[in-house]
């Protein structure tokens, strides 16, 4: 057996948002997602670290739970692990119960519940920095006596903030090998009893100047104001989309110019080899370069997402919009998964694990792909940049930003509409619970935000140099062969396999205004949505004849060749299109049913086709 398998296993458990994942990252050096709302972690995560004694310890990060009496799939994971019922895994050797020192009235109850399992445990009083700032005084020794468990203080977000915990683990893990004590006898102790114990412990060890922080109170008065709050929410959303366009433009141009220059230089070197020249310039540089230009926009979007996630504003937004979600038949709990879907539908669908009711969860999963994921941003911005003039409306707003906002908004509205229809179809009268905790506000740490953006950039670049590059090369190949016959007049792509497939698909897509080039790009776009953009770039680079081929930049090419109706139709298509195999795969995994995959893909395709058809026909009639 490997030594690792025998090294002691330590589980981090505790209420949601108590900082378990932050501690896990601090100890193991990982980069798991940390954010300021309940229900961020929905899976069991494992890491390891070496204690000062040289012993390797294995650490499990678990979803937060309010109680071991699990109400949702993510809580069930935590319960099963704590009780040693998780498939293929004995109970952990030591449980670290993490509690937020500013929120002990709630968190200590769970600590006591875990204690009743009778396993070796230690309480980590986290967020001691925030507690001190608020003047909360905790007598650690008295608390430890009152609860009957060892207590250490931690600050998960500070370097060295977990030193006391590490030292404790190092010392106690050696001793734990003994059999755990028996669980205490039965369930005579009911809720009231646990709560009474918590009160007693608090009275003995904790001095709280105020129940809440003054800053939170003041901010909540503004942010949750019935009118002011909604206005702020609208302003925040609007600012994001404006920024995506206005701030990114100079960076985008710089990237574009850089890629163009590099392409021209390498193209020059390969002048004598026509085939390779075509692969490198029409395929790789045209395709990848075009996608690369969107990196600044994606990073700006994520800058906002990361800051909002850490600030604690998101649950407040959910609070404001809850009524709307309720009308649509969604639970307020759906808000955060749907919001994560703006980054990518996959984490959004995973995050639905924190939804208690299975039907609510399925509805949320089905509508999550309607939230505009960041991979659609390149498609949107390409088309908007080419067809919507850069002008100011109402003296304030950038028209391109307004259109982008509208597209996102269209996604949200259709998600609500679809959820409403699902509810109707099911004749669902069940209750949809909210029960959502609003966390304290926190200032995002610039360093963490910077790391988050860097990670995001790495992911994007890995995608560009991986799957997007591979698909671009394949597409280039299919668009170049079979080679045109002698004396052909049209560009070679017209005789190639891809060209023929595109022409064949055009019959299906002509009613919604797609030409054969778009049809070709739809296919590799199945693998990743951005690939649609790189594919269009490749296809257009290859169909350009003569001198203008070199200068042809995708935006200019399509602006010259497409009608406005086609462009709008493609935009409408992308609001709905189910074109993301990864999303479908994750729906399959999370719902364990092909039927749901079929339902999702089917309704999304139907909506996409319908929306594009209507858009195209109306736009054509008007222009």
């Amino acid at each position, binding site marked *: 057996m490997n030594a690792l398998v025998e090294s002691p296993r330590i589980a981090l458990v505790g209420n949601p948002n108590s900082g378990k994942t932050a501690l896990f990252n601090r100890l193991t050096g990982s980069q798991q997602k940390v954010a300021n709302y309940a229900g961020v972690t929905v899976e069991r995560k494992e890491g390891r670290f070496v204690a000062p004694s040289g012993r390797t310890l294995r650490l499990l990060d678990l979803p937060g739970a309010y109680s071991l009496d699990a109400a949702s799939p993510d809580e069930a994971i935590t319960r099963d692990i704590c009780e040693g019922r998780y498939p293929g895994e004995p109970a952990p050797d030591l449980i670290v119960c993490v509690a937020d020192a500013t929120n002990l009235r709630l968190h200590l109850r769970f600590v006591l519940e875990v204690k009743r399992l009778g396993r070796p445990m230690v309480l980590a009083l986290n967020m001691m920095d925030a507690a001190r700032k608020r003047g909360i005084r905790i007598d650690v020794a008295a608390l430890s006596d009152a609860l009957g468990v060892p207590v250490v203080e931690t600050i998960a977000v500070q370097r060295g903030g977990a030193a006391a915990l590490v030292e404790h683990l190092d010392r106690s893990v050696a001793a734990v090998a003994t059999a755990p004590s028996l669980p205490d006898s039965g369930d005579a102790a009911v*809720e009231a009893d646990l709560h009474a114990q918590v009160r007693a412990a608090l009275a003995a060890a904790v001095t709280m100047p105020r129940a809440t922080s003054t800053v939170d109170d003041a901010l909540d008065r503004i942010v949750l104001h019935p009118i002011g709050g909604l206005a702020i929410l609208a302003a925040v959303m609007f600012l994001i989309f404006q920024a995506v366009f206005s701030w990114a433009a100079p960076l985008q141009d710089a990237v574009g110019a850089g890629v163009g220059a590099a392409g021209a230089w390498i193209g020059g070197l390969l002048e004598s080899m026509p085939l390779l020249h075509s692969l490198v310039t029409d395929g790789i540089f045209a395709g990848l370069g075009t996608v690369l230009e969107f990196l600044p926009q994606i990073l700006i979007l994520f800058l906002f997402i990361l800051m909002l996630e850490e600030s604690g504003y998101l649950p407040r937004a959910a609070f404001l919009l809850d009524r709307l979600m309720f009308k649509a038949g969604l639970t307020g709990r759906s808000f955060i998964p749907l919001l994560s879907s703006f980054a990518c539908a996959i984490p959004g669908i995973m995050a639905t694990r924190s939804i208690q009711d299975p039907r609510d969860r399925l509805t949320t999963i089905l509508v999550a792909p309607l939230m505009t994921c960041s991979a659609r941003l390149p498609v949107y911005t390409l088309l908007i940049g080419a067809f919507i003039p850069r002008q100011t409306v109402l003296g304030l707003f950038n028209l391109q930003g307004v259109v982008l906002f509208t597209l996102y908004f269209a996604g949200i509205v259709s998600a609500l509409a679809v959820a409403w229809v699902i509810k109707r179809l099911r004749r669902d009268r069940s209750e949809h619970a909210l029960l959502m905790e609003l966390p304290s506000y926190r200032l995002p740490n610039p360093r963490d935000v910077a790391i988050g953006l860097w990670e995001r950039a790495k992911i994007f670049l890995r995608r560009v140099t991986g799957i997007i590059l591979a698909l671009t090369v394949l597409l280039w190949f299919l668009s170049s062969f079979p080679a045109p016959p002698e004396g052909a007049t049209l560009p070679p792509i017209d005789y190639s396999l891809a060209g023929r497939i595109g022409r064949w698909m055009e019959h299906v897509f002509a009613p919604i205004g797609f030409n054969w080039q778009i049809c070709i790009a739809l296919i590799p776009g199945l693998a990743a949505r951005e690939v649609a953009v790189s594919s269009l770039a490749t296809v257009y680079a290859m169909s350009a004849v003569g001198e203008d081929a070199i200068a042809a930049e995708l935006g200019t090419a399509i602006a010259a060749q497409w009608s406005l109706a086609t462009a709008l139709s493609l935009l409408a298509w992308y609001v709905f299109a189910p074109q993301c195999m990864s999303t479908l795969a994750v729906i399959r995994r999370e719902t364990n049913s092909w039927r749901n995959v079929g339902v999702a893909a089917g309704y999304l395709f139907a909506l996409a086709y319908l929306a594009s058809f209507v858009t195209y026909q109306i736009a054509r009639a008007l222009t």
Partner: protein
Amino acid sequence: MRLSELKKGASAVVREVEDAHAADPIARRLRELGFVGGEPVRVVASGPVGGDPLLVQIGYTRFALRRAEAARVLVDGGVA
């Protein structure tokens, strides 16, 4: 009196949580979150449309509850 009947800004003390039906998971969860006899509560804010949901302060924590959930909590000494 029920928690859902409290005005914005009003305080009260929890008497108990009532099950809306047998083995009501929402009532159980409310108890776990600290809605047990003798605990002071306060309605801090309410949603923009129809005053739903409610933002309730219990202990040191704030929870957003829809009115249907808040109606399970019986309270004493509140001002409607």
